């Protein structure tokens, strides 16, 4: 009971302090801007720990953060191969193949109008297929290993990337295209020197969306058949053995991976499309 009271006290106290930091006279400092979300995150974790221990919630329902951290560091030897299997092989493999083929298809679609009218609805249909339905089928076609997970990621990632790239390739004004024409540029020169760089903001938009879809696709696809490693496999079997602390440790790995992946693409975007209004402060 004391712990629950302490949890409430910590929550109120931290909220008040954070509010003062965010709205008070210190709010301009860069360090304060970094500290406010960190303090909020830390408060949530502390309150979680105190409430779960105070109310004596069974660990098979919700484990406290301390055991999750213990499981994370204690099982590093298991989590690292799982990460490699799911992310490095499944998600990244599918991401590269999916985004790459979407880019090439978009160039084709842009060149030939009848392809645009035909392929985009098909792509729309493919994207709408639920992965809990497609994953078992793809496992049957491509086997249990990372190839089927990459295939699921390709199906999920292809359409958003295609739509974004097609939209980006069309986003040049008539004036700009005419200018290239006056320089006597061929179709390919116009494509690589004008339209492709102009499409980069859209392409990166698609790439960022694809990062989250890739990780989700790879993890969920592993629920439907996998060798005995992989983040999805670990979550599924740990639930079965009631090792909820391991489940949460895998969730932490997936969250860190997803954030880092998205952040990496966003950083690349900032470097390559610095000229775009969305990148200016």
């Amino acid at each position: 009971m004391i712990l629950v009271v302490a949890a409430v006290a910590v929550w109120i106290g931290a909220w008040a302090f954070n509010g003062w930091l965010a709205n008070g006279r210190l709010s301009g400092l860069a360090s304060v801007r970094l500290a406010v979300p960190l303090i909020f995150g830390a408060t949530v974790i502390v309150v979680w720990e105190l409430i779960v221990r105070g109310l004596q919630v069974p660990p098979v329902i919700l484990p406290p953060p301390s055991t999750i951290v213990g499981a994370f560091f204690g099982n590093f030897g298991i989590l690292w191969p799982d990460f490699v299997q799911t992310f490095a092989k499944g998600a990244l493999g599918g991401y590269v193949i999916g985004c790459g083929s979407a880019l090439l298809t978009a160039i084709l679609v842009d060149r030939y109008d009848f392809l645009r009218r035909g392929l985009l609805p098909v792509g729309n249909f493919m994207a709408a297929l639920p992965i809990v339905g497609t994953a078992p089928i793809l496992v049957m076609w491509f086997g249990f290993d990372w190839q089927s997970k990459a295939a699921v990621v390709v199906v999920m990632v292809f359409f958003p990337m295609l739509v974004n790239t097609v939209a980006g390739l069309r986003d040049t004004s008539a004036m700009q295209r005419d200018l290239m024409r006056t320089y006597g540029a061929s179709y390919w020169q116009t494509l690589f020197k004008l339209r492709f760089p102009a499409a980069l903001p859209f392409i990166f938009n698609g790439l960022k969306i694809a990062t989250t879809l890739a990780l989700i696709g790879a993890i969920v696809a592993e629920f439907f058949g996998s060798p005995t490693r992989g983040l999805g496999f670990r979550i599924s079997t740990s639930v079965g053995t009631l090792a909820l602390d391991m489940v949460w440790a895998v969730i932490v790995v997936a969250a860190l991976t997803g954030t880092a992946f998205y952040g990496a693409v966003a950083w690349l975007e900032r470097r390559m499309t610095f000229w775009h209004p969305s990148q200016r402060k």
Partner: protein
Amino acid sequence: MKKLVSTAALAAVLGAPAWAADDVTLQLKWVTQAQFAGYYVALDQGFYEEEDLNVKILAGGPDIAPGQVLAGGGADVMIDWLPSALAAREKGLPIVNIAQPFKTSGLMLTCWKDTGITGPQDFRGKTIGVWFFGNEYPFLSWMSQEGIPTDGGENGVTVLKQGFNVDPLLQRQADCISTMTYNEFGQVLDAGVSTDELVTFKYEDVGVATLEDGLYVLESNLADADFADRMVRFVRASMKGWKWAEEHPEDAAMIVLDNDDTGAQTEAHQVRMMGEIAKLTAGSNGALDEADYNRTVQTLLAGGSDPVITAEPVGAWTHAITDAALN
């Protein structure tokens, strides 16, 4: 207004007998099928009603861990296999076996004959499909006793997390798969494979069988006299249902089909399943045989470097309920 009041009073009076019955919620280990026929029969034939019980049967399925449902208060009693229950007990979930309707194990490993597998040592270098979610323990225990590592390579077995179908065998993605005598083995035969194309290892014959479907409750609940009394009546009626099902397998299969909300089960499949299940429940009156229990515990403890349980369990079962129910 008068009509409303009198209707309400009538409903209350007529509903009173139902209110007087005690509620029990049972969490099944898997989807509705003849594996759980005894309970559906007891519901259908009124055995639970005779014991003044209002029983609700919750179907399980993929990604439903019955232990979690029990811990969260979603059910009073669950069906689980003994290895999984003992492992959960070690993990901190205090569950106790109150009845054991299944006397023998139906777990098997079915292999293609052309892989050249004739004995367990031939598993080295092969790919084997294993169920997880609590069903992996008998296999891991067996491999540990044989001294075969399960992380792949030429000297060990490569384990595939098998879904709940027989495709890995049919698609040749695995050399062997886990099957139950009453379910997946029949599915393999239905797919057109003949028995002389297969080599089958029954866990019972190899000597590594563990006890399967048993009834489990939370230890804290068992301390409550009212709960214990409900469980006594529940076990009595359930065992009556099981014995009825053994004697009338086709009718029991039809009762299961009637209770199948998903509509996914077929009559032929359920009748065959009931026939096989009857072989597993035969010889048990519901009371846990301590010799069987000890055999399972020794099998699990003999797991070498990676035992399923690390210590002899204490207080994992009780005869208190079955003594009161069957006498």
